[in-house]
């Protein structure tokens, strides 16, 4: 629907939001969309961009790749949007990438981590019109591999990833590469599928292998259960994951005690006293009565990144906005200071957080 | 009735359900062109014997030969192709198809145009279909159903459904026609009409008919020979006259006066 986040009916900047509002990963889509709307309304309240209000045109891709293609086409040809945002998952984003390229409309994905989103590895070619606001799989996976080798002194590890999630498989792959390169040994690579609930079989197996650490790059819903079940059966070794863990529900599902001795790589720490972070977290809480997860914070930054680019471009001309996006440098977002590299991928620091009695505690910051 | 050939030879056939021997060591020989009745108390195993003859069940023992060929272990459609078609005790029409289509299905196995021919609408298709339609309409005429050829079969009154079932079985061009209680649910007048029809079919198509029936008027009226089944065994066989007076049959089946 054409909901106008600022309430302006004059000249507006149209942002087409292609998100998973229903279907399997609606939780991600809605979370990110919430934050985007929050950001837009803040921008509009502050007078908009170049004096124009931002209008968000939402469209549901039902968590399906084909739908995502269609939604992107619709937003561009029917709604004549200036910029595309979305989707949250890599597959649904990849499905829209070609449309943006063909139609020459800038597109920003806040959370798709697959390298191919911005750089088509098969054709060896940059996807000129596509940008992102998150770091990509290789970085996150590598960070945690090095962390387990150096900080946790792990010699052996087991990886337990979500075979149905591109994100999870990406982290899996790069963790493995980096861990083995650093001299560690991967004892087993196990997998589950999104929406699984019982992990006892594999965990019993992992327990019998007795690894030093367990890497579980997945999303909080399954991860929460994995950590809980692992601790219940007496697996006490450190467990680690990525930003997919970052959601307030994780503690509710796994329980505070079970989460002790677990570590994640993330974009930021919601408990960071930094006023920028606090302002965002408070505003989000006030509007949606929930603590923002990583999908949300990335969406929020994505929106501001677009606003920043338009400002620098001085117009909403698509080619100019594209150039401006590509030139994003030292943009200060909630998740840190971000510069896009030649592949349109952000170069920014990751933080490593440790869970202590249900709280995320800052452990380390890793520069790329 | 000399120089006739043995059409159906049932040799020591049995069928067991769990502990129940529904058909046990049945022997039955039917010559080409005969009109034979099969009677017996309820649960005697008549329908089961039909099911064995048509391949719905496999015999637990014994052999069945049709025109000298063994039909043991064949699927029902294969037996139909070898020349035995039937009707069912509980009517089994293709309810949502038209009367004409019901008959055309029975003619299917004589069709010469292949699926391929039909998909590409090669000339063979049109010729074949037209021929089938013609033949089917002819059959319907015989049974006085041609006026209803485009009706949906399940909407026909009961009596006409029975007639349609017989027409359909005949359209398969069998050598042996098996009728399971064709007169069930008909009033005496309708039964008389059916009796005439059966006789006429046999003469017109020169086929062999084996029928199960509880209506003694019909059985005694049209059958040349009768087998009596009780508890899965043949307890008597012979001409209607012989059967009518056979004390075993009277005791097991007919009751005192008939």
């Amino acid at each position, binding site marked *: 629907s054409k909901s106008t986040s600022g309430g302006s009916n004059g000249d507006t900047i149209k942002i087409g939001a292609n998100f998973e509002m*229903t279907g*399997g990963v*609606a*939780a991600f*889509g*809605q*979370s990110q969309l919430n934050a985007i709307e929050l950001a837009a309304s803040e921008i509009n309240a502050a007078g908009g961009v170049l004096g124009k209000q931002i209008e968000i045109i939402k469209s549901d891709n039902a968590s399906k790749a084909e739908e995502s293609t269609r939604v992107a086409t619709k937003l561009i040809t029917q709604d004549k949007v200036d910029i595309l945002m979305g989707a949250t998952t890599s597959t649904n984003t990849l499905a829209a990438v070609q449309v943006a390229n063909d139609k020459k409309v800038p597109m920003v994905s806040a959370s798709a981590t697959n390298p191919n989103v911005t750089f088509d590895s098969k054709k060896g070619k940059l996807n000129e019109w596509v940008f992102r606001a998150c770091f990509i799989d290789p970085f996150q996976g590598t960070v945690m591999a090095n962390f387990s080798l150096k900080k946790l002194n792990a010699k052996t590890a087991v990886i337990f990833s979500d*075979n149905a999630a591109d994100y999870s498989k990406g982290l899996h792959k790069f963790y493995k590469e980096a861990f083995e390169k650093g001299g560690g040994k991967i004892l*087993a690579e*196990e*997998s*589950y*599928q999104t*929406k*699984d*609930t*019982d992990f*006892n*079989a*594999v965990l*019993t*197996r992992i327990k*019998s292998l007795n690894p030093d650490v367990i890497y579980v790059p997945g999303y*909080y*819903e399954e991860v*929460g*259960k994995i950590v*809980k079940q692992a601790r*219940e*059966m*007496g697996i006490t070794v450190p467990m680690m994951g990525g930003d997919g863990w970052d*959601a307030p*529900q994780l*503690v*509710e*599902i796994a*329980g505070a005690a079970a989460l002790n001795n677990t570590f994640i790589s993330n974009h930021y720490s919601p408990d960071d006293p930094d006023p920028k972070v606090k302002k965002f977290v408070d505003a989000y809480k006030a509007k949606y009565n*929930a603590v923002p997860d990583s999908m949300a914070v990335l969406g929020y930054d994505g929106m501001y990144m677009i606003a920043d680019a338009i400002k620098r471009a001085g117009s909403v001309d698509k080619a100019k906005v594209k150039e401006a996006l590509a030139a994003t440098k030292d943009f200060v977002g909630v998740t840190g200071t971000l510069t896009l590299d030649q592949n349109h991928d952000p170069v920014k620091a990751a933080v490593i957080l440790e869970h202590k009695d249900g709280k995320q505690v800052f452990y380390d910051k890793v520069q790329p | 009735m000399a120089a006739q050939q043995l059409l159906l030879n049932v040799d020591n056939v049995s069928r067991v359900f769990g502990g129940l021997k529904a058909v046990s060591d049945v022997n039955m020989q039917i010559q080409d062109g005969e009109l034979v009745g099969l009677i017996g108390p309820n649960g005697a195993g008549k*329908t089961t014997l039909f*099911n064995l003859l048509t391949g*719905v069940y496999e015999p637990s023992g014994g052999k069945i030969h049709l025109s000298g060929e063994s039909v043991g272990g064949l699927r029902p459609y294969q037996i139909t192709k070898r020349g035995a078609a039937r009707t*069912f005790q509980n009517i089994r029409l293709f309810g949502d198809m038209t009367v004409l289509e019901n008959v055309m299905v029975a003619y299917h196995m004589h069709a010469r145009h292949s699926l391929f021919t039909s998909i590409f609408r090669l000339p063979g298709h049109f010729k074949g279909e037209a021929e089938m339609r013609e033949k089917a309409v002819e059959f319907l005429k015989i049974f006085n159903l041609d006026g209803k050829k485009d009706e949906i079969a399940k909407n026909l009154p009961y009596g006409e459904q029975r007639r349609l079932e017989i027409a359909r079985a005949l359209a398969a061009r069998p050598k042996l026609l098996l009728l399971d209680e064709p007169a069930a649910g008909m009033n005496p007048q309708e039964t008389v009409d059916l009796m005439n029809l059966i006789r006429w079919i046999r003469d017109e198509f020169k086929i062999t008919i084996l029928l199960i029936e509880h209506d003694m008027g019909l059985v005694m009226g049209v059958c040349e020979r009768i087998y009596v089944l009780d508890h899965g065994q043949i307890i008597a066989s012979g001409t209607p006259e012989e059967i009518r007076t056979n004390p075993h049959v009277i005791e097991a089946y007919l009751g005192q006066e008939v």
Partner: protein
Amino acid sequence: MFEYIVQQLINGISIGSIYALIALGYTMVYGIIKLINFAHGDVFMVGAFVGYFAAKAGLGLFWSLILAMAVCAILGVLIERLAYRPLRGAARIVILITAIGVSFLLENLGIYALGPQAKGFPEIVTKTQYTLFGDVTINSVQIIVLAVTVILMVLLQYVVHKTKMGKAMRAVSYDMEAARLMGINVDTTISFTFAIGSALAGAAGVVFAVMYPSVDPLMGIIPGLKAFVAAVLGGIGIIPGALVGGLVLGIVETGVSSAGFSLWRDGAAFAILILILIFKPSGLFGKNVREKV
């Protein structure tokens, strides 16, 4: 190695008993009105949510269960009244599509009203871990689930086969019109069936949420499908079949995962299902009653 196998067996039985618990309701409804009630998994989800809110409000396991069962029973009866009853006598595939519609409706009403995000389920049962021998452990919730499932199965079997209502249910399942002529109130009987079946789904929902502590509007899809598979495996419509089917499925899944083929777990489960069906076309316990010709 022996310990490992025993532990995995316990894991398999534990997940299997959950499948069985959901499958019981499935099979029961199917047994009576021959409807694959695809909304069953979503009634299960509603049950879990009722349990969630009850637990949040401070109720314990027992009252959360009772409340969830009651709400689901009412929901089940309502669904039957509004969506399935107008279709009595329609082709079964039509009612199946309606059931799919109801399933989508419940899921998306859930998303609309509660948001798609998973919520953590409060801990209302304290799990105690018992060590059987060596490293082999079992926890109290696993024991409870298995016990509840077996007891409910026996109870259901008793209701369906030994009580008057059960006889009425079976009569309705075979021939509604003839059942009417026996003086059976067909509508009441079917409502009763749905009430029981849905209450079972509700109970399963709460138990599931206690065991795997999160709830979300789509949580019913996979367990619903698995339970359906379990029910078919055992012979759909046959109550003990649901238990056996559930356990077999649980053990197969666990076995495949524990052997290191976790990627192929669901594939193996379906393959076993198909194999069993090929050799026993009506499931493990299904009587292959051929139509009498």
